[in-house]
């Protein structure tokens, strides 16, 4: 055999190539990209305009729709992150089903690049979606009482949450037998924010549900975001939030890597 053109794997360059491919797909697959942004927006409008008038006075120190928007904003942010990561499950499963992942596997590229490109793409997509969601919230009259430091904290936690949830959904996508199943398996992620401190104070829930809401991972994340966005200190919630993110992220990362390295029978 004569010399071949391919050189040794370059993880950074290969990840960059994969990221560009995924960004291009996002632009091309417009309906999916728009749906991801539309979903949290629809929930925001629904909660503010349909439920907000009644719910606003129900929260501590709350009055009208504006206060309720301020209360649910962290939950809307979490739903945006969840919404984007859901699509990752689908696109990963679609790639695997279509055989292009097998093509990548037979090439001398850094294997981590295939997944890393997907995760980085999800981060970019989340940032874009969050900018749109925040812009609409501002138009609806959202005003944050947060400090610059608080918003830096929000940014950091949002990135951490995006990474950990995306690795989880990458794992779900690789574990799914086909793309169709993959589009359904992570749906609980969209529902969990409802069973948290996101839309109503957990104190208003019946005992069993309240216990669940207070101990599920999204609650400290939402409480931390709410504190920083409102100019308060999150206290120990911040540590819980970061802890949950690291736990979910590291386990999912390990799981996804294992699934990707697993021999593909068919």
């Amino acid at each position, binding site marked *: 055999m004569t010399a071949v053109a*391919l050189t040794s794997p370059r993880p950074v360059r290969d990840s960059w190539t994969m990221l560009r491919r995924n960004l291009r797909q996002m632009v091309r697959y417009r309906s999916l990209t728009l749906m991801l942004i539309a979903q949290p927006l629809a929930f925001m409008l629904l909660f503010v305009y349909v439920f907000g008038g009644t719910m606003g006075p129900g929260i501590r120190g709350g009055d009208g729709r504006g206060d309720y928007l301020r209360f649910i904003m962290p939950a809307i942010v979490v739903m945006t992150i969840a919404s984007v990561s859901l699509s990752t499950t689908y696109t990963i499963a679609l790639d695997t089903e279509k055989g292009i992942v097998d*093509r990548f596997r037979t090439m001398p590229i850094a294997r981590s690049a295939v997944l890393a490109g997907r995760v980085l793409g999800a981060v970019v997509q989340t940032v874009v979606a969050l900018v749109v969601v925040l812009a609409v919230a501002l138009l609806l009259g959202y005003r944050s009482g947060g400090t610059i430091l608080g918003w830096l904290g929000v940014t950091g936690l949002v990135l951490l949450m995006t990474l950990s949830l995306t690795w989880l959904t990458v794992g779900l996508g690789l574990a799914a037998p086909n793309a169709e199943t993959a589009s359904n398996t992570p749906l609980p992620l969209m529902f969990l924010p409802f069973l948290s401190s996101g839309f109503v104070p957990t104190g208003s829930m019946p005992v069993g549900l309240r216990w669940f809401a207070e101990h599920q991972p999204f609650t400290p994340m939402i409480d931390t975001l709410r504190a920083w966005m409102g100019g308060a200190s999150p206290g120990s919630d911040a540590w819980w939030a970061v802890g949950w993110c690291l736990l979910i992220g590291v386990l999912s990362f390990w799981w996804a890597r294992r699934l990707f390295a697993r021999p*593909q029978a068919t």
Partner: protein
Amino acid sequence: MSIPTAVEVSELAMSYGDVDVLRGLDLTVPTGTVYALLGPNGAGKTTVVRILSTLVPADSGRAAVAGFDVARDAGDVRRSIGVTGQFSAIDELLTGRENLRLMADLAHLRSAESARRVASLLARFDLDDAADRRASTYSGGMKRRLDLAMTLVSRPRLVFLDEPTTGLDPRSRRELWRLVRELVADGVTIFLTTQYLEEADELADRVGVLHQGRLVAEGTPSELKRLVPGGRVEITFTSPSGLAAAAGRVRNAGVDEAALLLTVPYEGDFACLQSLVTELDGASVVSFEVRTPDLDDVFLALTGHAVRPVLPTEKPEAVR
């Protein structure tokens, strides 16, 4: 230094659950030749390609590709090969050009070289006009051509083609054969799997017949065809009397009275065919078919029974 053998497989075994897909496969493909692995669905052809292309480890046995062990030196194997699978592994959201650029980027080509390579492949694979259209709009034949072009971006010296023309219309099939022959002319070693004797005959230097996880025959296409009874003409009649009358006139004919079928050996000699036609009474003939030997005939000759799927499904289910 001697040129390593392109593919060297010994005692390869593989099972999915209770199903033994490969049971001690041995084969050798010298560098610069075309080898066709011929077999029906479920014979284990795809499994062989998946093992040789490092996608799945074998249960036992040894497989070396371009001189590298597929289990120990997977990275070196991947650097030496290109793989085009049974289903087009292309990104349908990207255009043809973008798909090729993706491969060029992953092969770490410099941008000027990458542009040249992509342009030349688009021209060679007759995808120029469709280069900037999304691959999802391509026909089956175009997708297959793009798939092969993507495999060739990195100039592999050994290419695996898993059933490259299954599902293609005859014109696209001939077009793909032409492209494969061009590769061969460039000195690329080809390992292909196929269900079609005709395809193996068209392309391969050597053919291995895979049956129940083992090679049951191996040789040049003409050696293989010598093992197989030649072609035949099958004539169906309207009535037993028409059949009997024709059977009396035609020599060496096989008679199937239940099916009203007369089978006459045919080796491609036109004069024979012409004289056969004059022997027949047109009014009593329902159909007249010229058959060339196909995979069924190969298997009938080699294994004593017709092609039957070894497995209940087309492919073994994934073990997940």
